[in-house]
């Protein structure tokens, strides 16, 4: 369980976090989505004990993170710019991590060695960026963390590697109940792996929802009304409506059956429920196209 309440973090007067609140249920995979500069990395650095928030409360399992070594021993983090020691080989770095994380598992490390298939005697500096990222996952997963905090984790990985890395993380989530917080500037990338999504912009979390909630609570209908009806009846609770020719596209905050039932009173010529993409859901959740949501989630 990760709980961030009204976190504020200022840099020289500029609030990178401006009252952000996040709640990640234990065992879930939480996607933090927002454009560059939204405050995702700052929030993650506060969560991993690098930054101390100026205001607000940041807790993992009910405990404050700042200077809490025992708690941090249960957290593994992969920042977007993962740091390793200049001359170190993978094995050197493994020894380093092993010296810090009480739950570090050599067994896991050896197993993952086969998965990633990288020579552990290689100097990390000489590996490609994507391989370095794989090493970061390798070591982080070997720490057997209860919390896995990932900042733009799959940037620079090819699709095959992405799948592999996510596969490992999902394995941990289902087997060990690992709680994962993952940030990305691209919602589509997180769609498959997350069960919770928070949208962040300008240092605030605009909304957070579980995907289940989202998908069941909004519907997009294509409707053709009977001749003579050109306007959408005013009494319909429509979030957003548009029209091409005779076909109206309606967004309504309810599930498909309810919506169809509501419309049937007008005996339309055609009612067709069209699935919404996650992006669309967020666009309408955030108040429609006039809000520059495209910039935030894409």
């Amino acid at each position, binding site marked *: 369980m990760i709980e961030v309440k009204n976190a504020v973090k200022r*840099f020289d007067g500029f609030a990178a976090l401006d009252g952000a609140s996040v709640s990640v249920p234990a065992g879930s995979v939480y996607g933090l989505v927002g454009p560059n500069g939204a405050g995702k990395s700052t929030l993650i*650095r506060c969560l*991993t*004990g*690098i*930054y*101390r928030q100026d205001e607000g409360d940041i807790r993992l399992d009910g405990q404050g993170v700042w*200077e809490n*070594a*025992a*708690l*941090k*021993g249960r*957290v593994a*983090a992969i*920042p977007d*710019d*993962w*740091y*390793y*020691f*200049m*001359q170190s080989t993978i094995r050197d770095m493994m*020894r*380093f991590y*092993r*010296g*810090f*994380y*009480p739950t570090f598992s050599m067994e896991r490390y050896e197993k993952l060695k086969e998965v990633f298939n990288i020579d552990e005697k290689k100097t990390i500096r000489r590996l490609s960026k994507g391989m370095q990222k794989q090493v970061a996952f390798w070591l982080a997963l070997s720490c057997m963390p209860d919390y896995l905090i990932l900042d733009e984790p799959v940037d620079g990985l090819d699709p095959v590697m992405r799948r592999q890395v996510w596969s490992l993380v999902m394995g941990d989530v289902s087997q060990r109940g690992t709680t994962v917080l993952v940030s990305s500037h691209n919602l589509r990338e997180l769609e498959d792996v997350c069960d919770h999504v928070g949208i962040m912009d300008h240092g605030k979390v605009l909304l957070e929802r579980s995907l289940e909630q989202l998908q069941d609570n909004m519907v997009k209908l294509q409707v053709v009304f009977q001749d003579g009806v050109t306007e959408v009846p005013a009494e319909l609770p429509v979030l957003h409506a548009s029209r091409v020719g005779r076909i109206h596209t309606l967004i309504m905050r309810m599930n498909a059956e309810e919506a169809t039932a509501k419309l049937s009173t007008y005996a339309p010529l055609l009612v067709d429920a069209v699935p919404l993409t996650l992006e669309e859901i967020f666009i309408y959740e955030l108040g429609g196209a006039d809000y520059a949501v495209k910039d935030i989630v894409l």
Partner: protein
Amino acid sequence: MNWEVRTMQSKTSYFNGTLFRKNLTRFWPLWGGASFLGALFPLAMWMNISRSLHSYLREPLEFTNLYYNTLTGLPVVSLLYAILCAMVVWSYLYNARSVGMLHTLPLRREGLFLTNFLSGLTMMLIPYAVTGALCVLISLLYGSFDPAGLFNTILGVLGLSFFYFASATFAAFVTGNLFALPALYFLFHFLAVLLEWILSEFASCFLVGVRSYYNGATSFLSPTVHLLSHLGVDSTYEEAERITADGTHYVDSVLTAVELENFYLIGVYALVGAALAAAAFVLYRRRRSECAGDVVAVGWMKPLFRYGLAALSALLGGRLLYALFWEGGFQNGPYAEALPMAVCMTVAGVIGYFAATMLLAKSLRVFRRRSWLGAGAVVLACAALCAVLRFDALGIQRRIPAAEELRSVYLYAGGNSYSLQAGKDDDMIRQVLDLHRAVAADTEYLRSGADPDDVYHAYTELTYTLADGKTLDRYYRLPITEERLAQAGTYDSLLDQFVNSTAAKIRRLHLDDDYAVTGGTITVYDLAGKEDSFFDLNSREAKTILDAVGRDTQAGTWGQVDLTGSDRDDAYAMDLYLSFAKEGPDVDRDADRITIAVRPGMENTLDCLDAMGLVQRERLLTWSQYYNDEGWSEEYDEMGTYTETASGTGGAGGIGIIGGADGPTKVYVAGTVI
């Protein structure tokens, strides 16, 4: 599961072995290289001993002497090596990625601080340990092992290493930038000395009578300077008779005792180091990780840095600009002019201010309204400083001690020095104070530097020792003119009265004080320098000549000093020096050397010199005859002053460069130190 795994599972929150080992293995080239360099010395020593070059090192005490002498030089080594160790150990603080990584680890800042501090200290000590171990091996090999000396040396090395590394650590936590760290470190270490020097330089630029010199009053704030000047080795040697294998006796000097002087200072600085380390830790607890890259990482130190850099730049840069653009070409007189100096300081200060602002903001776009306000403050401060100095708002120029506060007075005037003791020489002291008052009243005249080419300048130096032991130094270059000499009450006439009083003449020859003549030299220049003759005088010969000069003084034929320097060429072309020493054990400290100008009419002296065979009266030439023979440049004759054109040639080196009992001369500082 190996032991490594087990240690990390125990919750040691103050020390992490993995990090410690990682530090040492990551940065081994540093301490490895230093160890290699250090090891060269004992190895070279061993070679030398084995080849009997330094056979004295077979004595234990000689080894201790060697240790101690090395220790007195270690402040410099430690100063340099500590910053390297600090730079590698604390480098993780200066990069956002490494800051993130190290602070994500499950280790509190206490643990990070202590582990890294110990790593750095270990890196500092390894080379000393290697070098020391080799030295101990060699001393054991040659039976010259001295545990007491070794113990003290180890304590000294530990203390110095700790202090320097702690001070570097403190600097490391003040900044967030790897490149700023050494700059800041050296600034911390030498700021006091630098400020003392530049402030006294400014005082001497503006204040009439104040000379720029560093006296080390604040050197304790610059530990390296303080340690180098105070740590010392006191070795006592005694003569011992030795017999060689073949039975010959010879006298050898044997080291019988070695003491470290002011050894306690290392302990004091080690305590200071502990305080600095504690302060550094406090800064770490409050340090914001995001300051990686900032020049100054501590919020409240930022204005200090901004205005401190502006002030340093104004002082150092302003002085430099002034020297470059005004001093050489436009300055009138020997003292700085306030307005151009203020302009130079303002320019340098504002540049320093904006440079500091840019460094703090990590941006070149700092010319905003708020920063111009700060720049305005810098301008005002520069102008205020120049005004305070120019108009002597602190009363430094006007400060003349009352007769009652004095213990002694040292005066250098008219080419001679006079040591005056309160209670004994009160009359002369009163004269000196009157003279000083007259000088202080004329500061604007002195500042204007009237007619520097035509007028002869009398160099006058004053040192008052006050009853409380403090000293007050003044140094004047007084232009002397005929009109003012004739005017009562001017410093010209007061100075003339003083140096030409019988009491002063007698004091010059040390006839009425506890100085005794110890010897002298005489050089006689003859016929175009072809037959110069030089003699060393022993104390008896010197005494004979001194007595003759004394008789001439009584007869009124010696001792008159012409402050305008116009009688210079009347004297015979010879350099006659007499050396004096104060009677008593401390020979080195109180010594004086005077030069006697011998002129026609000094019958007693001339007879004496002739009788001693040092000169032949009929062959003596005056300086003017001598110069004419040598065909000196007309410039010299016209100006009546000595110029550079004459310096390089022939045997004329003595003229006028070194002064003496006979009147005003070029810069000659008497050997006497009060």
